């Protein structure tokens, strides 16, 4: 059995575009669920998606619990042993209140990678496989969210390149979600059910293509 942690924000939580954090796609519709279906029974998928989660920033308005870095430690230790950790974050760091360029968001992703490497939650206390997923770029029209994300749209297009640079330098896997899905026009930065399906399938293929060193031990 291999275990995968999906660490993300509202687009991992499965928040419905144009809805509130209480409106959520079902477990089999969300991309971690789709990926679980695609990967089959030998995989255990852990969902950890929180609306508003940032990479490393305490949110002065929504609260410090949105900080991905402080939560990542207890989260990983709760779910260890982990063969793979997928991180899809970054959009919330682009909120106007943080005033950060895309490269700083990528530095935040780098912090999370370093933390995982220090925690060594992989089999036998090793560093697990780490996959950075760049979120799909926001649409220009983000409806009533415009003031909160003012100026974020342009930066969101730069995340994929900045994340890939960090992934290259820290030698981890990388996938650009924008290569397979777009955000839904309902609110311009959440992904709809079809996108969850497409992303889940694409990520399953990425996960499979990692040169896994041996067949997982059966301990169901």
């Amino acid at each position, binding site marked *: 059995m291999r275990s995968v942690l999906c660490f993300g924000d509202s687009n991992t939580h499965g928040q419905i575009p144009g809805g509130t954090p209480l409106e959520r796609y079902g477990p089999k519709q969300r991309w971690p669920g789709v990926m679980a279906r695609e*990967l089959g029974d*030998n995989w255990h998928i852990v969902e950890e998606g929180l609306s508003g989660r940032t990479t490393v920033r305490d949110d002065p308005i929504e609260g410090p619990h949105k900080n991905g870095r402080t939560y990542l430690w207890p989260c990983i230790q709760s779910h260890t042993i982990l063969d793979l950790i997928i991180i899809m974050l970054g959009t919330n760091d682009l909120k106007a209140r943080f005033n950060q360029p895309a490269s700083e968001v*990528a*530095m935040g992703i*780098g*912090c999370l990678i*370093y933390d995982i490497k220090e925690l060594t939650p992989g089999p036998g206390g090793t560093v697990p*496989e*780490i996959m950075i997923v760049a979120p799909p770029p926001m649409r220009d029209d983000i409806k009533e969210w415009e003031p909160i994300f003012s100026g974020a749209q342009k930066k969101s297009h730069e995340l994929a*390149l900045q994340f*890939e*640079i*960090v*992934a*290259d*330098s*820290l*030698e*981890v*896997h*990388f996938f650009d979600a924008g290569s397979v899905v777009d955000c839904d026009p309902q609110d311009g930065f959440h992904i709809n059910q079809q996108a969850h399906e497409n992303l889940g399938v694409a990520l399953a*293929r990425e*996960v*499979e*293509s*990692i*040169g*896994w*060193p041996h*067949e997982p031990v059966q301990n169901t």
Partner: protein
Amino acid sequence: MPDMRFAPPNPLRIADRATGLNSVSVRSYNERLLLSLLLQNDGITRLEIGEKTGLSAQTISVLLRSLEQEGLVSKGKALREQGRVGPPTIPVALNPEGAYSVGICIGHKNTEIVLVNFVGEVGFHATLPNPSPSQNSNHPEFLETIQKAIAMLPKGTYDRLAGVGLALPESGSLVGGEEQAIEQKYAALQHEIESEIGFPVFVQNDITATAGGESMFGVAKPLTDYLFFYLGAELHTRLVLNHQIYNGNSALSFDVGILNLEQALQQQGMPTDPLWDRSSNWPDYGQTQKIWEQALIERLTNSCLALTQFVEVDTVVLSSYAPRDICRTVCSILEQSVPGITAIAGNLNPSPKAVGAASLPFNSRFMVN
């Protein structure tokens, strides 16, 4: 001391969206290691790459991503084998259109020029008379011909051209019927091509280049050790151990090649033009050909026996300009006369030496030595 974790990222390779081949200087050892494996294997999984290189899955992921971005590698389709447990195997392979190379060889009578793609498929081939060195310049006609050949390359291949490989015969061999040393004759050729045409030129002895071509594109691809023979005007030999071609100082060649047959045929007034025309089969030369074949096989047998006293090599590759049927016949007789030896006829077409020359830029730019 500052915490280096929070220094600006220092990527193995800067991820960018530029197209075209990266310059030679930025290609890392590990990237070359990976490309070497891909050039030596037709399809290889990431797991196999990891096992052969000792690199981690994450590092391989970074390297493959950058090679995919550069267009050198295409991601293979997942192979879902029936009844197989676990994830499907996804082979990684070179993108045939990812890189091109021009190969030029100066032969006994003619100069051959080929364009090959990244997997060795020949897209263009021309045969020209050998350049005749003039007094003042080195070889203007020759240079002009190469320029013409490059001008005939398909559109869109220029920025993917890895370079020009130039295979030159050993000094003292019979090119142009002149005694002048090859080194002097072609000394400035590399520099001239580079400055006139603007592509890097890689020069190698023609026999060594041909062995390299058989290793990269031909029948020797799966072989790590073999004894290589090239049957041209004369018979030449090289030893390949662990993919490395031993290129000794000895310019030894044996007068049992096609030239020897030609002389025998001429004495009997038989036509010899078909001998030098790669595109056609030889006519039935009867007894003369039989005698020549016997002498050739005797020479091959002696070389094999002499070598196997020192090294354990069980495969012979016979590469030649001669028709493949002839080579196959020679190979099967050789197998009978040297027990335990497998003899394989080379399959580089239309000119083994030129295709071998075309392997040189790939070798220098993409592989580990």
